[in-house]
């Protein structure tokens, strides 16, 4: 590195101990001493917590008193504190982009145990940063304006709560729901634990509020099909599927259903999970919002064959809401931020044939039993088996599709409490002996342990053991005609066979089957389990790595209703804050073409996914629109004559880093 290339460079190097986090593994003193010997370094210090106020002041003071004009901070990941140290530099009057961070915590002290090797690595990385920062240039952050509108995707309790919160702050909200009604899974539940208040009673007022809110545009039976742009201005296209009923004309009188040529309901009712039937023209459930009928094109004779007498239309002749010619339409909107609340699906217990779901009619999943115990459900709240008997013994099997390497590794969090609730309700409805087969009872939450105590005292049997199989073969006369759960009761140490009339599988919660497509469309990430990934597991559990996109509810991972509502409110607050700020600062890491160097070979033009690179026919040169450029640097790497550069990631800067880490190789 030649001194004369930049004679005025005065570098300050700061090595952070991070308490013991770094200092225990990396010899910070040795690193600081070493850094002092590097060309251009004027000051080299180590300090307990660089991110603390005194730590930052140290840098500021050096800038002011020692005319430091480049800063290297070796501490934690730049994703955590880069802005902190840039801010410190800025406060002292130095352009913030003269700061370079070195990650000696996440990438060094936390992953290595050999102190000597970790120290060598820290020196290498510090040297690379020192060599790199040499070439840094003063840059300005770019500001983009924020559209105040917010899109909420998914109309379950998370989406409903987020939409209402944002709308109440005076912003326009688009709420898009795939199903014909909002309400999501919560609408299917009977009671909610641990207070046992009725789910519908607390949910439906919020559903109506959404419908009535002047700031909310509600699009049900609709799906987001494309997302372009970035924070502040996302261009979103929403497909509105035809329900063959004009939403604005239908008043929800349901006369059409009455007069449908199908006299009997014979199609599986989705809302009741097939436990009851509906007609081709139907309303999902009584409190559906909007209260508008919908026609199932796979069941309707008119839509399938065109040969129906269309009695539904006759019933609606006055309002003329029914329209078989309805086509799907597309809406294009511009929003500043997006809240994704697309929910979950339940585990399909057919994947565990040992539990006989789908084979033995009296094996149910928890969602089905929610409908069974519900007064407005398919049995009007009677808990009866498929052959119409009131069960005398019911077993609830926990961790079906949870905590299992063969299916899903995670704990689904809500099944313990759901099972306690159902045990209580089943016992209340039938007086049956109820057995809960559990591995660990997880009842952490306000009032949850107390509810567990209540159910214990109600005489429910708690068998600690994971059921090995549900079978219908009897080894003992007492088992004849029953299902039998074979399980080790780990509390007593006996392997037991327990005859049951009804088995309830407490199925785990999984990402939606199309979570991966949704993730790609919105440009966010998934965790290993397939749920959407938050920006930080502790401190940013609703933002994502993509600015302006937030997640809420179970699309982020299993959680119960209170946690869902909290996260939805948090996501809404973030969206509101963003809109109220009015602008968003972007990293200045854009690419630019040096016009006199460009040969106009056009290699770069088709490589940009954002159409930021265009070819100027008049000048016969490439041109990069800085506003559109997101700063990936792909065109820079491809430019065969080296005529495209990237701020913050100049060739020289990266070469210096390479040379720096390898100086001793």
């Amino acid at each position: 590195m030649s001194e004369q290339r930049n004679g005025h460079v005065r570098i300050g190097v700061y090595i952070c101990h991070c308490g013991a986090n770094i200092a225990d593994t990396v010899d910070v003193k040795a690193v600081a001493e070493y850094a002092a010997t590097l060309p251009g370094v004027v000051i080299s210090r180590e300090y307990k917590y660089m991110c603390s106020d005194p730590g930052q002041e140290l840098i500021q003071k050096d800038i002011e008193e020692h005319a430091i004009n480049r800063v290297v901070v070796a501490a934690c990941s730049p994703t955590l504190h880069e802005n902190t140290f840039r801010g410190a530099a800025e406060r002292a009057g130095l352009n913030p982009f003269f700061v370079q961070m070195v990650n000696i915590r996440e990438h060094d002290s936390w992953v290595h145990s050999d102190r000597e090797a970790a120290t060598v690595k820290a020196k290498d990385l510090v040297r690379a940063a020192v060599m790199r920062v040499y070439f840094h240039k003063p840059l300005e952050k770019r500001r983009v304006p924020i559209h105040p509108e917010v899109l909420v995707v998914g109309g379950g309790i998370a989406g409903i709560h987020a939409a209402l919160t944002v709308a109440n702050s005076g912003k326009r909200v688009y709420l898009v729901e795939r199903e014909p009604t909002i309400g999501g899974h919560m609408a299917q539940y009977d009671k909610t634990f641990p207070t046992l208040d009725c789910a519908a009673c607390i949910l439906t007022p919020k559903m109506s509020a959404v419908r009535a809110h002047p700031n909310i545009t509600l699009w049900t039976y609709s799906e987001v099909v494309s997302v372009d742009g970035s924070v502040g201005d996302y261009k979103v296209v929403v497909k509105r599927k035809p329900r063959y009923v004009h939403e604005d004309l239908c008043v929800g009188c349901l006369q059409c259903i009455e007069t449908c040529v199908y006299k009997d309901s014979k199609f599986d009712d989705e809302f009741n999970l097939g436990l009851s039937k509906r007609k081709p023209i139907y309303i999902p459930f009584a409190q559906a919002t909007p209260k508008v009928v919908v026609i199932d094109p796979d069941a309707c004779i008119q839509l399938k064959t065109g040969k129906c007498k269309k009695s539904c239309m006759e019933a609606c002749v006055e309002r003329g809401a029914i329209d078989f010619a309805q086509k799907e339409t597309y809406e294009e909107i511009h929003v500043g931020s997006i809240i994704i609340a697309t929910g979950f699906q339940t585990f399909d217990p057919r994947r565990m044939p040992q539990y006989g779901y789908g084979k033995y009619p009296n094996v149910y999943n928890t969602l089905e039993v929610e409908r069974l115990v519900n007064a407005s459900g398919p049995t009007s709240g009677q808990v009866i088996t498929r052959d119409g008997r009131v069960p005398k013994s019911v077993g609830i099997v926990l961790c079906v599709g949870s905590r299992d390497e063969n299916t899903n590794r995670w704990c689904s969090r809500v099944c313990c409490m759901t099972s306690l609730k159902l045990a209580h309700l089943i016992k209340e409805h039938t007086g049956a002996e109820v057995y809960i087969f559990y591995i660990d009872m997880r009842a952490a939450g306000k009032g949850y342990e107390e509810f567990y105590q209540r159910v214990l005292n109600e005489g429910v049997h708690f068998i600690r053991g994971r059921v090995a199989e549900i079978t219908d073969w009897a080894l003992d006369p007492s088992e004849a005609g029953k299902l039998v759960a074979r399980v080790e009761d780990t509390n007593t140490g006996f392997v037991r066979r327990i005859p049951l009339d009804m088995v309830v599988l407490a199925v785990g919660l999984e990402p939606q089957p199309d979570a991966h497509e949704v993730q790609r469309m919105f440009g966010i990430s998934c965790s290993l389990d397939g749920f959407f990934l938050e920006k930080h597991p502790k401190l940013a559990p609703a933002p994502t790595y993509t600015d302006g996109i937030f997640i809420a509810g179970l699309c982020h991972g299993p959680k119960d209703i209170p946690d869902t509502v909290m996260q939805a409110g948090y996501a809404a607050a973030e969206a509101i804050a963003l809109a109220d700020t009015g602008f968003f600062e972007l990293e200045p890491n854009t690419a630019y073409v040096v016009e006199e160097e460009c040969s106009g070979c056009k290699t770069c033009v088709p490589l940009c996914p954002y159409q930021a690179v265009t070819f100027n026919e008049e000048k016969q040169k490439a041109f990069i629109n800085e506003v559109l450029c997101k700063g990936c640097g792909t065109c820079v790497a491809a430019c065969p004559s080296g005529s495209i550069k990237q701020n913050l990631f100049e060739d020289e800067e990266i070469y210096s880093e390479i040379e720096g880490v390898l100086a001793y190789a």
Partner: protein
Amino acid sequence: MSDKPKIAFYWCASCGGCEESIVDLAEDILEVAQAVDIVFWPVAMDFKRKDVEAMPDGAILATLVNGSIRTSEQEEMAHLLRRKSQILIAYGSCAHTGGVPSLANQFTREEILRYVYEEAPSVVNENRVRPQPRHGHNGTAVTLPEFRGLVRSLDQVVEVDYYLPGCPPTPKLLKQAVLTLLSGNLPPKGTVLAPDTAQCDQCPRKETKPVDLKITEFKRPHWTQIDPEKCFLAQGIICMGPATRSGCEAQCIRGNMPCTGCFGPTTRVRDQGAKILSALASSVNAREPEDIEKIMDGIVDPVGTFYRYSLAKSLLRAKVTR
């Protein structure tokens, strides 16, 4: 001797084309010859090494050396001429970036000697005799220059002031260079005396290159009927133009052959081959590894194609051998 500026020419490992190119100045050579004294030009005039050695250091205004450096003798001459010249110019691709001879850096010295003296089909050498650097015979010792394990560009051996790129450089560039030197208005040391944009800048077919090039197949020039109007890359023929410095007046392209890269990279580029590789690969129209591989199969000799003139000056300089 007159007090006209003294000029020298020398050739190292090269084909002689560069010497030809000087003669290609045609009548302009007279102009040059009038302005300067040529004090050393082994290929055309009868001067000896000792004549040069006898000159005081810096006596020559400028020496134009062509050819890459392979032998100890070439190294000695490079050092000698460096000392005697105020300005040393690497003339032509070989001196500039190693040139075609540096493709030999894909082989070890042993491999080369074995092939040339033992295995080449035209060789009859039953005793497997190889030239020795020193050979005693009847009491007299005969020496040959040492054959180095590596071909080098001129600037990898001695400091070079300017470069004239090309295989060979065009008469126009040579003339310009000489006039610049004589004018005394010298560009910064290390300058390549040719434009610093890529070939496409001056390519007659520039307009025919689409803005959304997607390469689905690589064809070799002799496999296909070449459209004489259309951009080579648009025809699937590898053209080094985008990664090659301009200034050659697009002679190959006018002859309906793609650019092979003799002018070397632009100043901003450290490795010409890697850069064209990056540009070409980025434009390949495939996403699945198998499909990509299939398309890449069309590039039969990546090293020979991308580094035809620049292996010595590439980042890796030579094939790694053990």
